[in-house]
């Protein structure tokens, strides 16, 4: 397994082989802290959100005592999925729709109909009596809930380290320091491996190529309008920025596969200010701190393995593996609690224009990933090259900032991929 990842290249099997995909689900997605959901999705006791960690169906639920639990979405009796809706409220108990077993919102078995049928059967020492299996290792970091399926490897703090500063920055952009998932989530099915999508989030050499048609069309139409900037044009036009822009924007990597683009500036830096927002921030934090918070760039931050957040525009993308060649991308929008609605409006517009299945910009990405997935089956070369601006000592320091067009973050991800894949083999 480790031999699939070299310093500057990776074997194509990591993208195309179904057996490796299965091993990723058993090992990589069990050994790492994976994003589950946001606490604002479950404000009240009994509220649940149904999702997956790798290929494992889980429920994030608010317990009676207001704590958050993450449970496997499986009845301990016959395996039935307890909940089929994406979200809802269970009240005090989950009720299995098959035989009406009831579970508390921490997973504990509450009751079974005709329970005398289990008397003297040894039921009290069965797996089933333990109820819905709860995942012990969960961590709520400023509203972002992560879980680790297997109790091995680094703690939450050691795994994410300094990279948590990007979540801090996104949350701090709210004058009251709180985010809410808002507006609805875009779901977009891709015909490629999940890692290809994650890699592309820090690929600064593709926008001027892949998005040439979209940004040129936007520039042409803007020209006809005498360079009048509608809010949407403001979001579309920066995609045409030249190589030089992305080189100087910079990239920063952290240990364990995390990293972000846009250190000095990014395509989000030039957005117009929103009336009243700065005043609210200054009132909340004082001018110096407010300016520091809003001056942070953090274009795309990768939380290895499969979450990306965009602090400056308050959105997140979750890359959910479905099969070796199939990935569901969810694009979430966040409201900065206490800030003007215009910010959420801009977040939704960005997601709609760039990340929706009906977007203007995203179709070309979709097509490139599909072609890459297909192309990897070609004989003659079994390796994918990730050597751009490679330096043999680049990851020794743990954290590094360098030229934004470096493929260092992809190498960083694969270094971590090899580590967390093999940790329990």
């Amino acid at each position: 397994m480790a031999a699939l990842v070299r310093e500057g290249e990776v074997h194509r099997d990591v993208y195309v082989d179904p057996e490796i995909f299965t091993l990723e689900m058993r090992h990589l997605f069990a050994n790492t802290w994976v994003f589950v959901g946001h606490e604002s999705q479950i404000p009240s006791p009994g509220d649940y959100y149904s999702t997956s960690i790798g290929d494992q169906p889980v429920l994030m639920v608010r317990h009676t005592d207001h704590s958050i639990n993450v449970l496997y979405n499986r009845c301990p009796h016959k395996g039935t999925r307890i909940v089929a809706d994406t979200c809802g409220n269970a009240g005090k108990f989950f009720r299995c729709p098959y035989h009406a077993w009831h579970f508390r919102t921490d997973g504990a078995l509450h009751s079974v109909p005709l329970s005398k049928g289990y008397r003297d059967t040894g039921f009290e020492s069965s797996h089933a009596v333990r109820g819905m299996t709860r995942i012990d290792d969960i961590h709520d970091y400023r509203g972002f809930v992560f879980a680790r399926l297997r109790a091995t490897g680094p703690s939450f703090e050691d795994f994410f380290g300094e990279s948590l500063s990007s979540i801090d920055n996104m949350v701090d952009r709210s004058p009251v320091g709180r985010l809410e998932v808002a507006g609805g989530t875009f779901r977009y099915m891709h015909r490629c491996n999940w890692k290809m999508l994650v890699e592309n989030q820090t690929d600064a050499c593709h926008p001027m190529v892949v998005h040439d048609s979209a940004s040129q069309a936007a520039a042409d139409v803007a020209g006809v309008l005498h360079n009048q900037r509608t809010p949407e044009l403001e979001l579309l036009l920066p995609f045409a920025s030249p190589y030089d822009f992305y080189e100087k924007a910079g990239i920063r990597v952290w240990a364990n596969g995390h990293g972000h683009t846009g250190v000095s500036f990014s395509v989000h830096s030039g957005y117009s200010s929103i009336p009243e927002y700065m005043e609210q921030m200054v009132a909340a934090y004082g001018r110096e701190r407010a300016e520091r918070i809003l001056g942070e760039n953090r274009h795309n931050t990768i939380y290895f393995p499969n979450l990306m957040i965009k602090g400056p525009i308050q959105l997140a993308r979750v890359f959910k593996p479905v099969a070796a060649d199939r990935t569901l991308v969810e694009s979430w929008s966040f409201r900065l609690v206490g800030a003007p609605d215009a910010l959420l409006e801009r977040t939704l517009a960005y997601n709609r224009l760039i990340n929706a299945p009906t977007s203007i910009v995203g179709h070309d990405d979709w097509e490139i990933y599909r072609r890459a997935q297909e192309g990897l089956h070609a004989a003659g070369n079994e390796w994918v090259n990730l050597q751009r601006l490679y330096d043999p000592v680049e990851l020794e320091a743990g954290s590094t900032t360098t030229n934004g067009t470096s493929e260092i973050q992809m190498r960083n991800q694969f270094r971590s991929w090899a580590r967390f894949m093999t940790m329990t083999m």
Partner: protein
Amino acid sequence: MKFPSEQDLARLVTLEARLIDEQRYEAWLDLFTDDAVYWIPLHVGQTDPRLEASLIFEDKTLLRIRVKRLMDRRAISQHPQSRCHHLMQTSHIDRRDGAEGPFTTWTPAHYVETRGDSQRLYAIWVTHTLARVDDRLKIRAKRIDLVNPGAAFESIELFM
């Protein structure tokens, strides 16, 4: 001023679909008023396009950008090119109570989009808001409600 007949309204709805299917985009854009809105909600029964996500919520400027991109040889996702087909039921005329409008029509349809060997079918209800501008009947708003707007779709590239 002539009061448009039900047939006049239905004819514009059909013409709009035809121009899309025939990829006559300049003529298609010309059917819309300057302040027109093209909307595909993300949620069933959605009323707010501003603070709720939409699949598409665009003015004529953005529609022009889409058309320009689709016509650009550099548009990677248009190799091979997408094609589409509208199969529409008879439009219901929901509102026709003045000579100037607004008039509204409701049209159930099946929309097919193809590219290469793939063909996808979408079931939709289309609501047109029409108005008379400079003595010409034009589209002021087009709302497309998918039967399953929240499904995880692959790319939808043309116009429903």
